């Protein structure tokens, strides 16, 4: 077994599989799966097995085709009145679109909200903002607290944007919340609707980061660069976001979890070719991307081993693991870096 080959030691049958399926069903990404809408483990395992069979029959099944959750159509922004509320919601849309320009004080890398939530947070299966709004407040295992929608978004700034969390009630959070609410208006609260989060993929028996490196070179590097650092346009603005390194999301971000990254990649990448990668390619390329160094987890307590134990104790999390002789997190650039110098 090569150093960058990861073996999560997973079986695809029996109790372990059912437990895994249940675990996947309750994992949190952009929003939790409320208990009420989580099917029993046996049902879920059956559905996951069906997905596997379908995946075997057709290499690239439509992600929408297997989403049995209730359908909700978000309100388009041109239906939102131009009143005081509408102004705040549109400010939220602007922050979502160009986070650096409109909320730069809280951003420490070269990412924008819309990099992981496509179409300015509207696109289904790309953790859309309107679907997330419907499932908060909720208890999250990440911080063992009931998160409000605003406190959930504080996490986005702290981890995914490698920046600084705005205070609760800050105009940035109020605007983003107004934007989410404007789109979610009329939707069923407490229900994970179709398109919410990233569609979960059945876990593979093994992850092969070396194969993922080849997938990256073939399918991702044309936009994100061979070194994963992203690409700027001719006027110096970031067009393709960095996927690792000092200007990307930090170790505390949801996307640093291989299962989240694989789900996002399968449903959304390469841009305009959603669903074109096989599940294996999506898993392996996610394993490769999330086996690269990135900014430190802001919860780092001085010891990578202890920080892993406290916050990263998962087979889908490479923080603190040793790849090619290097312990990830050991040489991480500092968290909460400074905004981009244009």
């Amino acid at each position: 077994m090569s150093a960058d080959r990861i073996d999560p030691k997973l079986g695809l049958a029996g109790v372990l599989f059912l437990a895994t399926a249940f675990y996947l069903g309750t994992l949190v990404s952009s929003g939790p799966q409320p208990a009420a809408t989580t099917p029993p483990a046996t049902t879920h395992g059956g559905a996951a097995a069906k997905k596997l069979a379908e995946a075997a029959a057709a290499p690239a099944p439509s992600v929408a085709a297997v989403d049995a959750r209730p359908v909700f159509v978000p309100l388009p922004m041109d239906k939102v009145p131009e009143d005081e509320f509408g102004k705040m919601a549109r400010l939220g849309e602007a922050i979502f679109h160009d986070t650096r320009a409109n909320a730069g004080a809280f951003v420490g890398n070269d990412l924008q909200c819309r990099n992981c939530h496509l179409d300015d947070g509207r696109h289904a299966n790309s953790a859309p903002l309107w679907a997330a709004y419907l499932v908060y407040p909720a208890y999250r295992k990440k911080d063992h607290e009931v998160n409000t929608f605003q406190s959930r978004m504080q996490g986005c700034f702290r981890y995914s944007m490698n920046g600084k969390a705005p205070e609760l009630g800050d105009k940035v959070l109020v605007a983003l919340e107004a934007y989410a609410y404007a789109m979610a208006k009329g939707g069923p609260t407490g229900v994970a609707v179709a398109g919410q989060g990233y569609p979960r993929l059945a876990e593979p028996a093994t992850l092969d980061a070396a194969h993922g490196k080849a997938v990256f070179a073939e399918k991702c590097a044309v936009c994100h660069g061979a070194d994963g650092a992203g690409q700027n346009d001719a006027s110096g603005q970031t067009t393709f976001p960095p996927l690792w390194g000092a200007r990307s999301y930090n170790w505390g971000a949801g996307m640093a979890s291989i299962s989240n990254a694989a789900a996002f990649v399968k449903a959304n990448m390469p841009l305009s070719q959603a669903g074109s990668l096989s599940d294996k390619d999506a898993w392996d390329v996610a394993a490769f991307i999330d086996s690269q160094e990135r900014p430190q987890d802001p919860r780092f307590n001085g010891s990578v081993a202890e920080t892993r134990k406290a916050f990263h104790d998962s087979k889908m999390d490479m923080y603190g693991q040793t790849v090619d002789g290097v312990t990830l997190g050991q040489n991480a650039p500092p968290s909460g870096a400074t905004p981009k110098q244009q």
Partner: protein
Amino acid sequence: MAIRTLGKAAALTGALLLGAGTRAQTVDAKAIVMGGAANGANACSACHGDQGEGRPEAGFPRLAGLNPDYIVQQLNDLASGARANETMTPIAKALSPAERTALGAYLAGLQPPAAPVEPKPEEKVVAEGKKIALQGLWDKDLPQCVSCHGAGGVGVGVNFPKLAGQSAQYIANQLDAWKTGKRTNDPLHLMTGVASKLDDSQIAAVAAYFESLSPVAAGGAQ
């Protein structure tokens, strides 16, 4: 006069002796643009203008301000047949690698104003194109054009050319070529997929929008 001729001869001999590795420094790209190359390539300016500004109404693209590596890549593809074009293939074949490199660098550095276009497209067509370019058509899983070609269509690296100020006729021709399989040198066949999601009126709209943008606005030479 005699000394100058001698000097020229010496420089030429030196270049020949030094070989292909340093020939790029001796290629006069401007001379090729204006008068063609010794080995049979026509003058670029005949179709693309003295300053590489293009002839928009005829669909001859603006070359000024494109990414230099993109220009070289397209010349290479035209020469190899990876990009088929009856006019450009023989010209590209006639250009040496050093000449292609020199032309890329020279044309990338030109910043002439946009060539005039008559008649102007209808405002509502441009507006429809703007919507597609900036918002995409996500009901067809079609992302914003600017999500790959950069804010304002200024271009990104070797693979995503500048669209701002490009000939609408040229853009429409290329989208049509991808859609019908006549052009296939797009990385990952991204543009084949994108073009197949646009109907003829959407192609015309998005092409008109990018043509309407200034090619020399913020964003510099590329």
